[in-house]
């Protein structure tokens, strides 16, 4: 079958992959239109890296089919490799080559030169330029990550796959990295990125929540957060640990999780007015001797939604 001219940048249909007894991916299907900044959000071991490696033609799926830029990832391997940019999760540059040498090396692998596509990498590379003679292995985490991004872009790919580019990187470098991705997206590049940090989902146009090889949800970050579907309360009162234990012992407690400076609480009863839930919990906590009890409705985040959804398959199993 000739490769169909697909309008989507990525199309995945029923993809599955096992490693021995471990199911890494199970029946994954989704489509990513060109120009989208799409995020896979999930913890280590969710299957993100396996999926990325299939999409960039490094490993073969056991089941299903995937196309990238309209080309089959199992048959159009050589054509695709020239067209995709890939930044693996593990630092994969040459630590004993300098910043500049790494960049020139990756350009030459693709038969390109650094100068040819310099406009694309310039905003990033200019931050690295003062250290261009430093061995890549001696860079800080944030700088390594920027160099790796330059190396993935140096042949001007049509689509960029970034596997956990911000893992283990501090909050400031993470923020700067996402600003760089915004700029690249503005140039029309399709970007597929994975992250274990739930708060980064809001940086993406759409996200897929992924857990144990399965997609839990695909939608915009806002709609995923809104899909939480139950009244959610932020509870504050004095010391957190005694409060956590006390709320857990409340007969009507559904889920209770530490969340930022508060606890996030859902009630197990359906159909009750939020005010009734809040005042019931407030009275209970006062009865348990807590002072300054605060219980108020709060907007669910992606992380609340993720936790609510990931709980389900576990109970079913």
């Amino acid at each position: 079958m000739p490769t169909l001219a697909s309008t989507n940048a990525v199309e995945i249909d029923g993809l599955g992959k096992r490693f021995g007894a471990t199911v890494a991916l199970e029946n994954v299907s989704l489509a990513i239109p060109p120009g989208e900044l799409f995020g896979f959000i999930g913890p280590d071991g969710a299957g993100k890296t396996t999926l990325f490696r299939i999409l960039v033609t490094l490993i073969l799926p056991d089941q299903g089919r995937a196309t990238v830029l309209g080309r089959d990832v199992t048959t159009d391997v050589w054509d695709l490799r020239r067209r995709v940019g890939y930044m693996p999760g593990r630092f994969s540059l040459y630590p004993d080559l300098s910043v500049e040498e790494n960049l020139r090396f990756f350009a030459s692998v693709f038969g390109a030169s650094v100068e040819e596509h310099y406009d694309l990498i310039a905003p990033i590379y200019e931050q690295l330029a003062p250290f261009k003679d430093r061995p890549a292995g001696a860079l800080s985490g944030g700088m390594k990550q920027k160099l790796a991004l330059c190396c993935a872009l140096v042949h001007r790919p049509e689509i960029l796959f970034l596997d956990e580019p911000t893992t283990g990187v501090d909050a400031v470098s993470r923020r700067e990295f996402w600003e760089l991705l915004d700029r690249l997206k503005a140039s029309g590049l399709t970007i597929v990125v994975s992250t274990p940090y739930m708060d980064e989902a809001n940086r993406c146009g759409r996200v897929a929540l992924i857990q144990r090889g399965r997609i839990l949800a695909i939608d915009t970050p806002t709609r995923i957060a809104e899909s939480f579907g139950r009244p959610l309360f932020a509870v504050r009162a004095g010391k957190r640990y005694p409060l956590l234990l006390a709320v857990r012992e409340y007969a009507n407690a559904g889920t209770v999780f530490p969340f930022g400076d508060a606890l996030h609480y859902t009630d197990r009863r359906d159909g009750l007015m939020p005010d009734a839930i809040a005042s019931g919990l407030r009275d209970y906590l006062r009865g348990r001797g807590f002072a300054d009890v605060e219980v108020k409705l709060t907007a669910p985040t992606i992380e609340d939604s993720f936790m609510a959804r990931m709980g389900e398959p576990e109970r079913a199993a």
Partner: protein
Amino acid sequence: MTATPQQAAIEAHELTRRFGSFIAVDRISFDVAAGEVFGFLGANGAGKTTAIRILTGLLSPTSGTARVAGHDVYSESEWIKRRIGYMSQKFSLYEDLTVRENIRLYGGIYDLSKDEVRDRTARMLSRLGLEQSADTQVRSLPLGWRQKLAFSVALLHEPSIVFLDEPTSGVDPITRRQFWELIYEAAAGGTTVFVTTHYMDEAEYCDRISIMVAGRIEALGSPAELRRRFGVESIDELFVQLARPAAAQTS
């Protein structure tokens, strides 16, 4: 908080470490009370790792003083190593040993008797719900379980302080919270917890935090206190405010 000052778990005063002309840790001073959960935050390259290496007895400071669990970091580093627990995301357990073998190995390293190892192993396995997996190789446990086990193993010799270096990196959001409950439980039992993290929401879970920028501690206090003092909504916001100007200059 009822911190009794005579019982400080960590006391650091003007602690400094140079590498040649580079000052990795620049006159930092702070105390951590016994039973406190202390969050040690900072950007990559701010000097956190160097400071932790000093406090765990692995590296001598250039100047300043510090006592950990009552022991001097210059002259009593061997005592410090016996009195503290340590775990990190990068290294914690031996993956090709079973759960039980890992516990026995650490019991041996910390000179526990056979009976102590047996009793504590049984208690730990039951508390973690890992009885069925006692003879499983650690590599085949899910990451979240490995991290919970590693934390318990770091507490096996009942240290007065445990150092946790990014213990929850990459862990799913529910397991991350379960891990923090283990931290609270340990702290409620009197163990001091010294923890680093890149999850800014976890900073809010600490009794007090410090934020290191370019070798210096630029903020120190409870999360609520710091939010008030700096007029910010969250520790994430404060972190970016303090660390961002420095990020432009460091490599």
